[in-house]
């Protein structure tokens, strides 16, 4: 009886741990994407020498950049899928 109880509580711990680690992994993936977007969008949006603060034009550019980059990714994925389905390489 005792052995059975210990086993099932260990299993519960392990799957709870898996669940919690999966959540942290998801957060880490989000952060990794932010690093990528920031890298690309800095080049697109930050003109000239660094200023004392981000002006609203630059802020707008950065926000648009993220959305347009995601749109581009979706666009390419969709078209590429169509190309593959048609038998292109």
């Amino acid at each position, binding site marked *: 009886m005792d052995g059975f109880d210990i086993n099932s509580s260990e299993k519960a711990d392990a799957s709870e741990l898996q669940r919690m680690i999966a959540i942290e992994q998801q957060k880490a993936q*989000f952060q990794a994407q932010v690093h990528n977007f920031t890298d690309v969008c800095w080049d697109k949006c930050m003109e000239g020498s660094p200023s004392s*603060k*981000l002006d609203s034009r630059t802020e707008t550019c950065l926000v648009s950049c993220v959305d347009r980059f995601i749109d581009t990714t979706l666009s390419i994925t969709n078209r590429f899928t169509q190309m593959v389905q048609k038998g292109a390489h």
Partner: protein
Amino acid sequence: MDTGTIMEQVKVQIAVANAQELLQRMTDKCFKKCIGKPGGTLDNSEQKCIAMCMDRYMDAWNTVSRAYNSRLQRERARI
């Protein structure tokens, strides 16, 4: 090792990796922005530029983070 301790370590490792990534990319961008022809030392204007660049990079990072989060929420709302 209990769950709490393991999760602590996982979170710390992820945070450290995140900070390293941030610093590496920030250094790349700010070197490009602030250092022209490399001289014998970093002069005052270069140092000031680097400091401002760091602040702006973190501002940009936060703006991008919010924008990405908003986009994800909008996409989830559509499903």
